[in-house]
């Protein structure tokens, strides 16, 4: 029995953190955000050199064939650095979908491209969880029509993975006829989200997902796990920043961290956040090792991290006083990233309901 990270996993964490610290400091994030770019190309390229886009993809298809715990550690590091790069959709959700439901030919074609980092695939499955307005996609005769909202990593994508109204998954080329993308502006400028409109657009169905919702659900699980891990990383950075600030900022001739009101805010953040790490690890580990527990644990991880993330985000901001509210410090990038993660792929209430259903508690 050993519930801790292996040496290799710690090394992965360290090398990523080191890379992001040098390649993706806050200044770099700001440039993307201010220019309203969809991503930091150079950071993405650097991550591709480390093999990150193929983290889950088997070596046979050009990936590095690691597990969900490693994928979650990557997500945590990206959240920690508020890195403006595609990951959750293209490096995790899409490979999961392809491996679960793609034909041999599709796997061969797409997984290798994704692993290289050269092809980026966005994911539009929001309508399967909660349809807003009249969004939704219908399939007939190999063509798709309709719209998908909140398509993750959509601006920079070359290809889209989307679900039709039955839950079957389709791959759609980014330059296919009848496809239009409309950028949606969210609070979080480190992520790109679009509305995808399709009009008789040719698409390629993933055969294993026809009349079988499981591949869709696994894809969503994988995405939720990554968002939970992203929040873990982002919240940890906010806590670290609050603690550092509380040691250094002085008022009334003493460091503000010596005031109990401030010290206790920090202690509460730490006490809430630390167990989240174990929850994310366990959920990630369960995907392959204890698949019967995985969906429940992922639901709990996503919902609970949303709550704790929100608490840490507001509390850390408060510890910083007026400085926390400014753009100067940039703390708000983390605040917004956490806010984004909370809503996407299901907010906490919705997911808790699912956690109850997974356990057969809802009659």
């Amino acid at each position: 029995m050993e519930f801790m990270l292996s040496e290799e996993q710690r090394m992965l964490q360290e090398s990523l953190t080191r890379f992001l610290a040098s390649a993706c400091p806050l200044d770099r994030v700001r440039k993307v955000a201010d220019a309203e770019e969809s991503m930091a190309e150079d950071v993405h390229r650097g991550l591709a050199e480390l093999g990150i886009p193929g983290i889950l993809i088997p070596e046979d298809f050009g990936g590095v064939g690691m597990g969900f715990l490693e994928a979650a550690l990557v997500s945590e590091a990206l959240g920690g650095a508020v890195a403006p790069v595609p990951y959750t959709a293209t490096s995790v959700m899409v490979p999961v979908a392809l491996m679960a439901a793609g034909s041999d030919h599709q796997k061969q074609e797409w997984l290798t491209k994704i692993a290289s980092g050269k092809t980026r695939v966005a994911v539009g499955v929001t309508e399967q969880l909660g349809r807003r307005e009249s969004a939704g996609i219908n399939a007939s005769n190999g063509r798709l029509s309709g719209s998908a909202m909140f398509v993750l990593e959509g601006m920079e994508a070359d290809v889209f993975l989307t679900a039709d109204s039955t839950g079957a998954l389709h791959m759609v080329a980014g330059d296919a006829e009848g496809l239009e993308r409309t950028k949606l502006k969210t609070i979080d400028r480190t992520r790109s989200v679009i509305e995808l409109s399709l009009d008789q657009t040719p698409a390629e169905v993933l055969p294993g997902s026809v009349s079988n919702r499981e591949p869709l659900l696994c894809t969503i699980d994988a995405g939720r796990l990554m968002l939970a891990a992203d929040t873990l990383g982002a919240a940890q950075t906010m806590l670290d920043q609050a603690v550092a600030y509380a040691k250094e900022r002085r008022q009334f001739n003493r460091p503000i961290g010596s005031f109990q009101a401030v010290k206790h805010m920090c202690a509460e953040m730490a006490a809430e956040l630390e167990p989240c790490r174990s929850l994310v690890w366990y959920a990630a580990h369960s995907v392959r090792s204890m698949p019967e527990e995985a969906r429940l644990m992922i639901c709990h991880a996503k919902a609970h991290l949303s709550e704790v993330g929100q608490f840490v985000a507001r509390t850390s901001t408060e510890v910083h006083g007026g400085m926390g509210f400014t753009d100067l410090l940039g703390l708000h990038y983390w605040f917004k990233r956490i806010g984004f993660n909370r809503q996407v792929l299901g907010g906490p209430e919705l997911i808790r309901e699912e956690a109850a259903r997974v356990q057969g508690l809802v009659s």
Partner: protein
Amino acid sequence: MDLAYSVEHEAYRDEVRSFLAKNKNKSPGLGFRDGTAANDWQQLLIEHGYAARTIPKEYGGAGLEADILKSHILAEEFAHAKVRPGHSGDNRIVPVLLELGTEEQKERFIRPTVRGEMSWCQGYSEPGSGSDLASLQTKAHVDGDDFVINGQKIWTSGAKTAHMMFCLVRTEPDAPKHQGISYLLIPMGTPGMEVRPLRQMTGDSQFNEVFFTDCRVPTTEIVGNRGEGWYVANATLKHERGGLGDPNQAAGRFNDILDLMKNETVDGRRLMDIPSYRDRAMALQARIFAMKFNGMRVLSHNIKNEEPGLSRWIVKLQGCELNHQTASLAIDVMGELGILYDGSPHIRDQGMWQHRYMMDLGLIIGGGTAQIQKNIIGERALGLPKEPKFDKPI
């Protein structure tokens, strides 16, 4: 990350299971641990190495090598079978005696304590000294071969039934506050000692006031040297804190709530079918899992003899809070039924949830309050600066 147990540990688990299957009927039931039936059970467990595992044989223990995982497996299996587990005597005093007691003290106290024949109470808190324990005022001076004790203790749990008290008293009035304290062992019922029960909010009277008037104990009944009591006591506080907030306890209680919500109805609807209750239950379940896995992490570090850091510092604060929230949820989903108490008609689970709701609040306060825990997390785990001190001399 490997949640599987080794062959050796799996075999151990099987062995414990078959022992439990065979001997379960001899177990005297959960609840208080005194009485001969409980002591016979404890003796049987020690013989099999299932209680007092690491206490040396010469002092009545099983004398086995420490194996954190085996202890963990034991706790899990006994909890699972709902059989009363064995104990190591008293996890506050026995480790202290083993570490710092004289040979004579070990001989005299550890064996009966481990067998369950001798029980202890902790005489630390005083009316004027709670969180600021080191300011304590109960005094002892040496007269001939005795310490002569005067003063008062309060909140002394179990003082009415205990055989012995381990107690902090000020023996060096001129020394700085942490260096003037000594750690004494006092037989209950010693002349000059008076115990007055205090009624708690639960209606029970587990804790007491203890008054000392020229109460005499031989000077040999000290653990450590004069003036070292604070450091001796901190060894025990460490052991006590480790025990409060056990995440598996909250997990077990949560399962009882799920059963309650599946079976209890309002307007003919199962409580589980009321969305807002269900939502709270799920939110709590996530917290409980998080703490349970946090516990696995602490355990894994302990096995490897590595410092678990923050994950350990938060256990008392978060674990006790979770227990309290668990009881609170049970009461809320029961609504008016949740306020029934004291054997009332229609009562559920003998009013256990209200009792726990109050008891768990007591444990949020006892053993270092939640606020003190936050100071500790802030200062020791996060390295935040201490507050300026306004200590006045004792």
